[in-house]
Structures are given as C-alpha cells and as structure tokens.
C-alpha cells in the first residue's frame, strides 16, 4: 500500500453543483437584525463613531458604545489617518499614559510613520534629526525593527520617493496599518477584542475553503469576497 500518496492522486469529491449551492444560499434566511448588529459591531470596534450613530438612525440598532473613550479614540484615528502622528502620540499619552511605555514596538512604528510623514513633506533634515533622536534606542534594543527602519530611511536616497521601490510606504494603506496596530492595543487595554465579528467570519470562511481545498473537495469556491464571485 502506498502510504505517501501524492495529494494530486487523491480522488476529487464533489459536494454539490454550483447552481444548487447558490440556490441553497439564497434559501438561507439570516435575520436582518443580526446582520445590522454585525455591522454596528464593526463600526464601533473600528472607531467609526459618526457612522455608527448614523447607522443607528437608519437601522434602529441601538448604538451602545461598550468601548470606552470612543470619542478620543476617533480623534486618534483621524490624526493617524490624516498623517498627524505627533498629535496622535500626544492624544494616546493623554488617554493611556502607560500604553506606549509598555508597547515600545508600537511607539517605534508610530515614530517610523512620523518619519515617513516628514519625508513625504520633503523635510529631509528634520527627518534625519528625528530618526537620530528617537529611533536609535528602540532599534538597538529590538534589532528585528532594523529592516523596517532601513526601508524607510532608503526613501531619503530618492529624489521622488513615491516612485521608489519603497513607495508603498508613502501610500494611505500604510497609515491604516498603523491605526490597526494602535487600535488592537487600545482594545486590549480596554479588555475588549479588537477584531470585529465580521472579520472573524471572513477568517472562518477562508479557513473552511482552505480545508476543503486540502481535502480535494470540489465545491463552488467564493473567489472574490466583495463580488460574490463563485467559481
């Protein structure tokens, strides 16, 4: 008996044809109240207070900010997404003075983003002084940060950093990454999970599809989430 059979040799099992699958999906009824709650949960956990209040008006789902200090958190989010990192750090220190002392890597990432903003604004001399004063200590203690620091400092070499190989650092998603990291620590300090339930559902979906793929099961795979594109 061939124990180590190749995965490709394993027979494909078919669960259900695509049209029947979609028919069953359409027949499933999920209460709109539950859907609205999921959306509200997402808006609250991600700090979209105004959106949550508006959604409350439209859907009738009660907006109960179990998350503490939602207003202040929204201000911090707006500061980060707006590129005003110094202000964001100041607000974080007002709200949770211990947070950045106890999460030095988070502070490093915030200051690295501040460096990126200085480079984006063309303040090269200021950027170099800032890096010397603020980023050397943490990178000495945490050498795993050096590759990221090197990438950012490499932007200084280029006349048009946004066209450099590291130009992605100057784009908006980079700010979202930083905000996401800050939000995770915020929620942890407030004894809450930062991950919205919707994000967990997507994770479970991806994991389930992975398991079915590993088992060589043929099924209508959801390829593109946003477009409901089944293969």
């Amino acid at each position, binding site marked *: 008996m061939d124990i180590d059979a190749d995965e490709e040799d394993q027979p494909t099992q078919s669960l259900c044809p695509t049209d029947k699958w979609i028919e069953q999906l359409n027949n499933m009824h999920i209460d709109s109240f539950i859907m609205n709650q999921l959306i509200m949960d997402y808006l609250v956990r991600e700090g979209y207070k105004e959106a949550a209040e508006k959604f409350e008006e439209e859907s009738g789902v009660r907006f109960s900010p179990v998350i503490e200090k939602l207003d202040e958190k929204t201000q911090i989010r707006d500061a980060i997404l707006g590129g005003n990192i110094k202000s964001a*750090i*100041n607000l974080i*220190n*007002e709200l949770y*003075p*211990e947070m*950045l*002392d*106890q999460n*030095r890597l988070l*502070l490093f990432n915030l200051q690295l983003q501040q460096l990126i903003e200085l480079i984006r604004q063309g303040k090269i001399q200021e950027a170099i002084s800032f890096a010397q004063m*603020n980023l050397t*200590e*943490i990178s000495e203690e*945490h*050498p*795993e*940060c050096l*590759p*990221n620091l090197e990438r950012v400092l490499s932007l200084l070499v280029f006349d048009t950093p946004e066209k450099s190989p590291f130009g992605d650092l100057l784009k908006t998603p980079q700010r979202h990454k930083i905000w996401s990291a800050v939000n995770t620590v915020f929620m*942890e*300090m*407030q*004894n809450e999970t930062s991950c919205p339930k919707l994000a967990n559902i997507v994770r479970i979906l991806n994991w389930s599809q992975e398991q079915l793929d590993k088992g060589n099961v043929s099924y209508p795979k959801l390829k593109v989430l946003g477009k409901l594109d089944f293969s």
Partner: protein
Amino acid sequence: MANMEVDMDGMQGILSEVSNTYKPYMEKIFDSDPTVVLAGLKEIRNFIIGNNRQKSNFIVLGVISRTVYMMSVADTDMIIKCQCAVILGSLALGSEENIKSLLHYNVLENLILGLQDQESDQFFYETCLRCFRSIASSKSIAAQATTVEKLPTIMNRILKCVDLSASTQECTCEIITACCKTPEHQEMFAKFGSVSIVCTLVMSPKRRVKLRAAQALTALCYKNPRISSVLVTATYGNVTLISVLSSMMSRCDEPEIQLNAACCITNMYRSGVMDESHEKLVFYKTAPCLVRMCEPGRTCKQRILGAKTVAYLIESEPRLQRLVYICEHFPHKLDVFLRLPQFEEAKTPESLRKFKEEVAHHDELVTSAFLAYAALLSNEEDLRKNVASDPLVKRLVEALDSKLEEVRTAAIQCLLSLSRSIQVLRTFFQNQEVWKSVLQLAFRDSVSDRETAALCALIANLLLEFSPSRSQLLDGHVLKKILDWCKNPSSINIRRNALYALANVTFRSNSPDRDETDTKLFGIDVLGMIGGETLQNLAMSDDEVTKVRTLDVMTNLLSLENIEDLMGKHGALVIQLLITILARSTNHLPQSGGNESQQQQAESPQVLCAVLRILRNIIEADLVKTVRDFVIQNRQILVKIVDLCKSENTELLNEAINCLCCLVTIEDEHESNLSRIELLRSIGVFRVFENFKTSSIIYMPEKLKDALEYF
C-alpha cells in the same frame, strides 16, 4: 591623566548638550504660570514615554525633585499634579537606574500621600497607584523591599478603592503578586482581607483583571495550607472559585489565562488541601494544561513557567509523573528547551524577534527543563530508563560548568534523579564521566548552600556500593570534602546529605568483600577525622535525620573487624554518646489510667535501635568484657534497656532483647557468671525472656532460648 581630562571633557560635553537641548522644557515647569507649567510637563511627558535615554536625561536635569515638590504642595492644580504623577509613572517603567533615582528622592512617600488624598480625582489616584505598582514590580530588589515595607500604611486604602476602575483592580492584583514573596507577606495580605477581594476579581469578565487576579491568588496560596483551604471552599453566589479556575483552563481561553489558572490550582493542590473529588481536575485538566504550555509555539516565559510548574506539581507524586510522561510527548517538548537557537533560521523580522527572545531566555529554558526532568524521573525506574540518554547526560554535565548557579543546581537535581537508577549509573554516567565534573564542582569555592546540599545528595548516590563512580570519587579525595560538609554550620540539609554520603562511604569499608578502594578506607580513622566535638554535636542534634544518619555511620565504622582498634582510640566518647542517648529515652509503661497519649518518647525507635545495635556490636567484640561490665554496673542503663523490651515497636523490642542476650551469654572464661546473672534477674531480664520465649515476633528465638538457660 591627560586621557582622564579628555574623558571628563567628553562627559561634560554630553551633559551640556543634553542640558542645552532640554533645558527650555525644564524651565517651563519652573514657571509661575500654571498653563506654561502644564505645557512643559506634557512636553516632557511626550519625550520620556517609551524612551529610557530621555528618562535618564531629564532625571539628570532634576525632573523628579521638581515633580515630587509640585505633587506635595496642596495648592497645586489637580491637573498639574496628575501630569507630575504621569511623569513619575513613566520613569518607573524605565531602567533600574531610573528606579534607583526614584527611590533616592523618596517618591514612594509622595505616592502614598497621593493615594491617601481624599480630595484627589480618580485619574490622579489611578496614576499614583500605577506608579506604585511599577516600582513594586520592578526587578530592583531594593525597590521591592521598600515597597513591601511601606505597604501596611496604604493597603487598607488600596483595597477600599479597588473597584474604582478596571485599572485599579489590575494594579491592586499586580501589587499583591509583586510583594507576596514570603509566608509573612501572605499573612499580611490575608490579614487585610485581600484574599476574598482577589477571589471576586477572578470572576471578573474583564480579561486583564481576571489574569492578574489569578496571578495574585497563585502568589497568596503558594505553600500556604491556610489560605489554600479558604480558596478551595470559596463560593460566590452559586459559583465556586475552583469551577471558575477550571473553566479558565479550557482551550478556548488564551494561553496566558490557562497557564495562570493552572498555576493557581497547582499551588492549592500542593498545599495539601484538596481531596479525591479534585483529583480529576488536577490529573486530567491542570497537568495536561501545563504540559501544553511547554509547546514550542508558546512564548519563552510561558514555557519556562509551564515547565517549572509541572516540576512542582509532580515532584512527589509518581502517578502524576507517569501521567505527565505520556501526556502530549512531554519529554520531546523538554528536549526542545535544551536546543540552542539557530541564527540561520531567523530570516524574517518575526523569526528574528523569536531568535532574540530564545537567546535571552536560553539559560532559564534550560533550568526549567532540568527541573522538570528532575521531577519527572525522581521516582519511577522505567521512566528513567526511557528518558536517560547520552546526549541528555552530556548536556547535564556541560551545565555543571555553567556560570549561573540556577543552571548548575537544576542540573545537579536532574542528575540526582537519574542517579537513583543502577542502570543509568553504570552506563550513561560512566560514558559521560559525571564523577569528574561532580568532583570539580565539589572542590570549587564560593558555592551556595543550596547547590552544595544538592551536590552532597548526588555524591551520596554516586558513592553507593554498586556505583562504578565510587572508587573514582574516593580516589579523588572526596572523603575530605564530605567530612567538611558534615561540619557545615549554616545548612542542615548539607549536614544531612553529607552524613548520608559518609554512611555510603563507610558501608563497605569493613566488609570482607571490600575492593582495593574500600581497603584503603579500612585503614583510615574516619571517627578521628570527624572529631569528637562534631560527632557529639551530630549525634545529639535536635534533628532526627541527622541523628539517625550519624548513628548509621557509627554502626558502619564500629563493625566487628576493627572495632577493638577504634574503641581503643575513641571508646570513651562512643560509650558516653550511646549511654546519653539511651538515658534520654523515657518509660514505655502506660501511665495509671492507661492514658497512652501521655507516653512521649524523647528518642525515636529508629535512633534507639541504632544505639542498641552499636552497643551490641561493641559488647560482642569486646574481648576483655570492659564494656559489658560497664553496662551491667550501670543500673540506670540496664533498667532503660529492660524498659525498651516493653515497646510496641517490634524492631526496637528485638534489638533490646538481643542486647540483653549479649549481656547474659557473653561469659567470663575464668570467673563465675553467677553474680552477673543474679543481677540481671533482679532487674527483670529473666521475666522479659520468659514473656517472649514463645512469641512469634522475636527474630532470634534460638538466641533467646540459649540465654534463658543461663537462668
């Protein structure tokens, strides 16, 4: 001199640069306008948070004294006081040097005043409490000691305000965990009512509070049956604390929570207050949970705590050892602890971070693995046979050379467990020449008492008669070291273990089957080397184990072959010791009214048996009957021996009768035995022999029968 001037200039250059850069911020906090002061404080706060170098810079510029002053002045605006407390709190999260500076400026006193201030607002109270907690939790021993000293003045207030917020709940638990290091600390916290408060916090739905409360409970109930018994029966509403801790160990909870709940249950179990109804919880939930924490995917700190807690849980319980052995391939998990981290595997920032973590914690990982192995292999021979291997023993031998005492001591404890196996002694221990490293360590200076005690016990096992290392150690002059350890003034464990080693050394020294090494010992006056004063102190020790082992050594030495020679040199001392010990034993007859609880023996049966055995050996070997006559003429001793024939302890009874038989049957060749026999009859010896002549509990009925014929 020129170089020093350059260095001083350099230092002053740095100081002046720091001063020039940050002086403007410092000047602001000396301003008379509170708005300017507040702005300055916030700027300094933003500088120092997350940056130890800036913390040190501003300490040099005097930020501590200024903020402490502002906090202490009653007129200062609360908002300014809050920022001062924030700055001090940030400094407390800095380096050990920063903590030292805080202690130097008596910051704790000011924090206590801040905590006691009834007019303050919640944010100020929380910030002061967090700073207090950071100082208590720091690695500085001085900081911990100072905090513990000051706690009683503030504990009531802290407990009263515990429910102000999640932050105060967390900090209270962290303070208890950091300061609860001794039984006295535990009792102090219990006296303040901390135990019940922390129990309710374990039930909190907030994850961080729950975790810190579990850690505090673990510290409170460690080796404390009284507090543990309170926790075992603690109930809140319909829910028991035990059931809450049990649910915290489920896999859906995060590892940190599972681990700390398991540690708490372990401490309660080891305090001896749990009964069979909790066995399932301990055996099938707690033990597997701790084993899971040793997986390679866990953080280093979790693995270290997991392994150490497993060691503590199983160390005196063979059933648990067997269970843990088969649980999730536990020995394989421990093998990974001993592996050196590989830099080649650190290719990504995440793996580089992991590599750095493993390097930083490598010694602790090794220590915890050795401790876990030591516990796992302490009782069961088949586990030792399955786990012992050349690579493991080699690793242990290498660890004996470590610069760190913790690593060496853990390695010794593991070797001690392994040394209980004859097979391991004869194979892996010989292959890796364990005796060599052990001998080197024995003769090293400045070894701590704890390490020496463990080393003594290991050497004792290596000196057992079937151990191949015995002759190698004796040739290496280990006897001299053992004799020194017998005299150790500070540690009872060292003396006990050294005496055990000495008993093993002397065990074969008088045997007809002795080998070359033992023959050398035969000629050494070990009693003389111990010294009369030391022998007396050991034999008269209040510690039962010390006494018994000393007598074991004397029994071994005073065997039949060279007893005359030894008695010639040390007879007076030996007899005096034996007689003194016998004289201390009390009457074994029940008191009038038959109240047996009033019988109190000053010496244990084990000690008395040893004494009688030695006495008998001496009497039998004494050709000129000096000792026999001395005993017979000492009515008090005779009465004691006859008294011991009434003991309920079979072994003691037999030794006493055996001794009396010797006194009866050892005849004088040319003199009449009549007067001796009549004297013994008058003491009651004949009556004793008559009582036991047909008894089944007598070991030597023939000898008794022969003795009776003399009457």
